């Protein structure tokens, strides 16, 4: 064919320089902040008091971020992440307290509840075509009421007293507490692997499986996805179900960290759920996600929070600085982007 022969060997498109990689920018920012905080407060590197709890917090909020990322992949939002986490935690608490099930069984029950809630949101969104923000916002309203009602009904109060065996261990121990002979593990809390597994699984899903890729394609262009044979409505439901599942996991991790399955779980999830992915370079538009970025983004927010805490700011200053640092971090990414574009233009 004439076109085949006519195609000249074109030079490769503009290569992205390594410094323009958004993840790298985050790492640099992170290192900078850690260095800054350590200089100001050497206690920042205190293993037991800073680094170990920091890892636990990062684990929770990375999973929270992933829960949001699961629907950002579609260009959707899940405003009810916190409440889905709370409902899962309720289910887990109920299972442990009333049925006395072992730890993993309760976890599975809770995750199932989260998944179902997410799927329900996805179902409403895909059937009505109404914006996900509206649907999950309404769902958040409904769940916040329901959770209180359930807790008052089932616990005479606010939290389940029964806890499965292993819960305290999960909260308190690090791998350093476990030794093979003389060799002990690193000072890494036991819940970190749970979050890591979640991150890897989500990464694997979006990168290497048909399901994940099809969710991304649905997010990129729903109409085209449908016309390419992707069952887009199912994908919407599945992405939201995944969001619910991860929210449930985050609820579990937080309950493990805090030591009880209580009604307040997830109250503060909403904002961090967006910060992680967005700082990590996931757009709200859908079609692309960055799992590593989300983990880094969650790490960054927790480091900022921890560092500012160590600096002992008053409440007003603390909030002020958190907001400002976030704005700066976000704008830096923007500056990097603009520079990359300029360079690209000249190349």
């Amino acid at each position, binding site marked *: 064919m004439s076109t085949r022969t006519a195609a000249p060997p074109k030079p490769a498109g503009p290569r992205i320089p390594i410094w323009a990689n958004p993840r790298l920018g985050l790492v640099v920012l992170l290192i900078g902040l850690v260095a800054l905080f350590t200089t100001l407060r050497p206690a920042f590197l205190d293993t037991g008091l800073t680094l170990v709890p920091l890892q636990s917090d990062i684990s929770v909020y990375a999973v929270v971020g992933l829960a949001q990322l699961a629907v950002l992949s579609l260009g959707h939002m899940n405003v009810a992440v916190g409440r889905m986490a709370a409902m899962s935690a309720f289910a887990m608490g109920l299972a442990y307290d009333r049925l006395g099930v072992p730890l993993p069984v309760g976890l599975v029950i809770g995750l199932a509840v989260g998944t179902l809630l997410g799927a329900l949101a996805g179902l409403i969104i895909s059937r009505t075509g109404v914006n996900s923000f509206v649907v999950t916002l309404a769902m958040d309203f409904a769940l916040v009421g329901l959770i209180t009602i359930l807790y008052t009904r089932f616990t005479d109060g606010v939290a389940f007293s029964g806890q499965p065996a292993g819960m305290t261990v999960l909260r308190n121990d690090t791998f350093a507490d476990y030794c093979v002979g003389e060799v002990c593990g690193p000072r890494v809390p036991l819940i970190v692997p749970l979050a890591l597994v979640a991150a890897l699984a989500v990464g694997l899903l979006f990168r290497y499986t048909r399901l994940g890729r099809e969710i991304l394609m649905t997010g990129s262009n729903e109409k085209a996805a449908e016309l*390419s044979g992707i069952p887009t409505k199912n994908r919407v439901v599945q992405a939201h179900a995944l969001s619910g599942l991860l929210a449930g996991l985050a609820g579990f991790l937080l309950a493990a960290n805090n030591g009880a399955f209580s009604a307040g779980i997830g109250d503060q999830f909403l904002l961090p759920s967006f910060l992680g992915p967005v700082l990590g370079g996931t757009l709200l538009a859908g079609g692309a996600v960055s799992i590593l970025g989300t983990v880094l983004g969650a790490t960054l927010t927790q480091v900022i929070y921890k560092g500012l805490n160590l600096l002992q700011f008053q409440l007003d200053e603390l909030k002020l600085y958190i907001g400002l640092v976030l704005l700066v971090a976000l704008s830096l990414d923007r500056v990097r982007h603009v520079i990359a574009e300029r360079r690209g233009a000249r190349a």
Partner: protein
Amino acid sequence: MLTAEGLVKTFPGVRALDGATLRLTAGSVHALLGENGAGKSTLIKILTGVYQPDGGQVLLGDTELRLAGPLDAQRAGIGVVHQERNLIPQFSIAENIVLHHLPRRFGLVDRARMRAEARRCLDLLDLDLDPDTPVSGLSVAQAELVEIAKALSIDSKVLLLDEPTASLTGDEADRLYAIVRKLRDSGHAVVLVSHKLEEVFAVADTVTVLRDGRTVAEAEPLADYTQDRIVDLMVGRAYASVRLPERQVDPETPAALRLREVSTARGHRDISLSVRPGEILGLYGLVGAGRSELAKALLGLDRITSGTVEVQGRPVRIRDVGEALRRYRIGYVTENRKEEGLFLDQPITRNIGVTIWRGLARAGLVTDRAERRLSEEYADRLGIRASSVRQLAGQLSGGNQQKVSLAKWLAARCEILIVDEPTVGIDVRTKAAFHELIAELAGSGLGLLLISSDLPEIVTLADRITVMSDFSLRGDLVNDHDYARMSQAIIRLIHAGSG
């Protein structure tokens, strides 16, 4: 009157204009021609202040024009209809027409004057539309005409039309060109960009040809040129029109796809047709005849209310595109590649791989490597021009985008392919390549249903032609590739139906 000299414009990775020049004279229609990606739209956008040039200048008469934004161009009397539709869907026709200079009274928008002005512009075009209708309810052709009215509303002396007829029927295009002639006669300078050379030769007086961002023919009288000569200029070398391979379809071969008296919820009535393997069935009709809708109903996107669809001789009920693809091996290359065919923010690999991840998966996992190998194979086979298969689909030229949108169906090994308006907005050379490709596909045994409003295209490619108008079939013709005879027969069928 309006002159652009030595324009340079660079986008990230692309030099769209490289010293292009355009000279316009009042009272003439000026054709601006070039292949896809030659820089025509970019030139027009610079003339209308949408882009700022990296070099060169724009002169009105002898004074240099500084066009910092679209408003500057409007003040200078330059009206434009861009290639993409640019109306605010929620606004009324009237408001869209006068949006850039909403009339005010006591600080508030003066609705009465707004309506009156819109009315005046619509009257210039003999358009009988209620100015209060929201534009979201207009047909493509009506929206196009409203855009022209909008361009005229600024008392423009210069009117730039970027592929105004790409989605118009022949009748509608004729009406548009009548208006263009009227404007020319009243002293306007009109620039016309189009890939439909017949139309260009019928209406334009002078021509400028762009190739790779450079002007290769500047404001020449069109009468001095033949179509072939123009194409040579656009392509940059002597261009031999391709000869399509001879194909023979055994009339005894059983049909791959057969519709028996199919009616749909969309309003199709008793549609019967069949496509054999290795055969191209041309489905001709004017825009809005219901052909795309029929294709979509076949794929399960709309309900079939009665009649049967048979694939390889067995009656089937297709529920969605996935089933059509995987179970019955039917593919559909949409007419609307930007919105329905492609994932513009994704790389070529994903765009091609999307239909076959199931097949590529090893132990449930799809690797980028497998996908890339496959994409490279099809990029090579279809001659997709890209820096690499990892380039984003949105960065490709129109023709290459169309090839990508076709590639995913080939990769999925479809046996029946519905190709909808495959060459809309595609330049002559790419179009010919596409025709060759389609013929080759048929040659390799695919059954093709070719939906097109482009008569020459249908007559060139199809083995048989069936004509649709108003959601019903009007008749069948066996194509003998004689353009004059076939086109007359087709037109007659259409008019017989509606008359």
